[in-house]
């Protein structure tokens, strides 16, 4: 009896402290939610009041209208082609930029500016780049490719350089000790170590680029998004439903394929 009492005495202060932290944490979360309520125009009652409207809206999507499926397929293929070019160009650029932003390979005065440049490319959403490139090179898929290229380079260069910074330096030193030059060290010492990870990251980015490419068309940068946007704006909901279903099928299929491939390389 007395022993049990002792143990609970000992654990009490710690448990007490934890519960205070808990209360504070929940308090902060609730305060944030309350603060954001108005700005986010939260009107949960609208869901109930407009229930009839909403169900009518939902019903208008069915049955999906696949009459023009060949055209949808064509646009989906263009979407994938945009993603392929955007990703491959980004991978090619990310190899040098990734290495140039690795602390263990280059001095800080190269590494830091490269990193900031990549941060910028990453911070700006591909849709923003797409709008800019539509102005620069005109409407169409090429603007989409450029947008994906820049944004993805920012992301992949960071992922690539994280892999480079985690390599085992000892075999690289072994190569340095033979009198090899710095480029040799990277080509024979660094890249073989990071290649599986790099491939995996690239495939992963390809998956998300296909998803991004499906909306690029909304700003005129090519692909299925353009069609989707026109159908939604013209209240062609049955066609919209068909397009969305085809996008879902394509994206899931590509995700599966890419996951398979990624398992193979690592």
């Amino acid at each position: 009896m007395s022993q049990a009492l002792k143990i609970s005495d000992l654990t009490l202060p710690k448990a007490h402290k934890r519960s205070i932290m808990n209360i504070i944490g929940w308090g902060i979360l609730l305060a944030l939610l309350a603060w954001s309520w108005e700005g986010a125009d939260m009107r949960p009652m609208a869901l109930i009041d407009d229930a009839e409207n909403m169900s009518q809206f939902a019903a208008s999507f069915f049955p999906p209208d696949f009459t023009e499926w060949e055209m949808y397929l064509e646009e989906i293929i263009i979407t994938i082609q945009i993603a392929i070019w955007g990703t491959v160009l980004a991978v090619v650029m990310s190899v040098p930029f990734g290495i140039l932003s690795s602390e263990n390979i280059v001095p800080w005065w190269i590494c830091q500016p490269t990193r900031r440049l990549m941060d910028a490319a990453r911070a700006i959403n591909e849709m923003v780049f797409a709008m800019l490139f539509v102005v620069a090179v005109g409407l169409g898929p090429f603007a989409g490719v450029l947008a994906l290229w820049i944004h993805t380079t920012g992301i992949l260069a960071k992922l690539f350089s994280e892999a480079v910074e985690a390599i085992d330096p000892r075999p690289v030193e072994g190569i340095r000790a033979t009198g090899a030059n710095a480029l040799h060290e990277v080509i024979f010492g660094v890249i073989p170590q990071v290649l599986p990870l790099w491939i995996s990251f690239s495939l992963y980015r390809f998956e998300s680029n296909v998803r991004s490419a499906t909306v690029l068309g909304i700003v005129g940068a090519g692909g299925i998004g353009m069609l989707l946007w026109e159908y939604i704006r013209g209240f062609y909901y049955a066609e919209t439903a068909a397009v969305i279903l085809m996008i879902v099928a394509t994206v899931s299929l590509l995700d599966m394929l890419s996951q398979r491939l990624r398992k193979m390389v690592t």
Partner: protein
Amino acid sequence: MSAISVQALSKTFSGNAKALKEISLTIEEGEMVALIGASGSGKSTLIRHVAGLVSGDRSSGEIRVHGNLIQRSGRIPRKVRQHRRHIGVVFQQFNLIGRLSVLTNVLMGVLGTAPAFRTIFGIFTKSEKRSALQALERVGIESHADKRADKLSGGQQQRAAIARTIVQGARVILADEPIASLDPASSRKVMDNLSRVNRDDNVTVLVSLHQVDYAIQYCPRTIAMRDGQIVFDGASDKLTPAFLQELYGAESVKLTNEEKQRETFAEAEVKPVNTPETPHGLPVGAQAKTVTPETQFVQ
């Protein structure tokens, strides 16, 4: 001209730990020298300095390999890349790029001399490949040439690293505990490889070892270190069990595993102190500034 000359080399790591204290030593061409000492005595640090992979304190003198300046006053000259190709380095482990083939790893030995515009694309000539294969033959693992390097056993990897120094045409091999993680049979093969390269090609070998019996068996001369200083430099057959006990003593206090310590010394004691053929009739330890165990211990 000595193969290796080190003058007053000191190294202070950040945190004021003095890893090397005014080390001076000379090793003549064709010698095979063992470097022994307890863990933390500075063996690896010394070897990395001689290889020009790290620089010493500003107060340090010069390090030269075959007369070529590796560093002076703690500065490594830019030209050191050219000189590194005369120095083969074998680390305890992880010398090779695991995902590349054994042959490719051995071919890395030509990077210091072959034209870079070709080698950066991984293009190697027939004769380079032939010499890599021959080197693998010499260390007895030519049948593994096409395997991925990380599929080799530890001992085979070490031998591949030695093959790389052969392809490199290194005049000096620095081996940092090349057998520390190996079983006795593999250890013997690696040491035999080093010994043969030393004897047949007149390559100077400086090898750090944990096992004193290997030092005595394979190396006519031994340099012993403690706390960053050389406390013995002379013929390996002059090493006394009492000295060795002292040398590793500081460590055995920290380790509670006295049994293991005693075992090591017992081995050193019973092994007949046989110096193998002295390479090229070099006066073994002739120039050695011998610090006798006696003088060392009264401090």
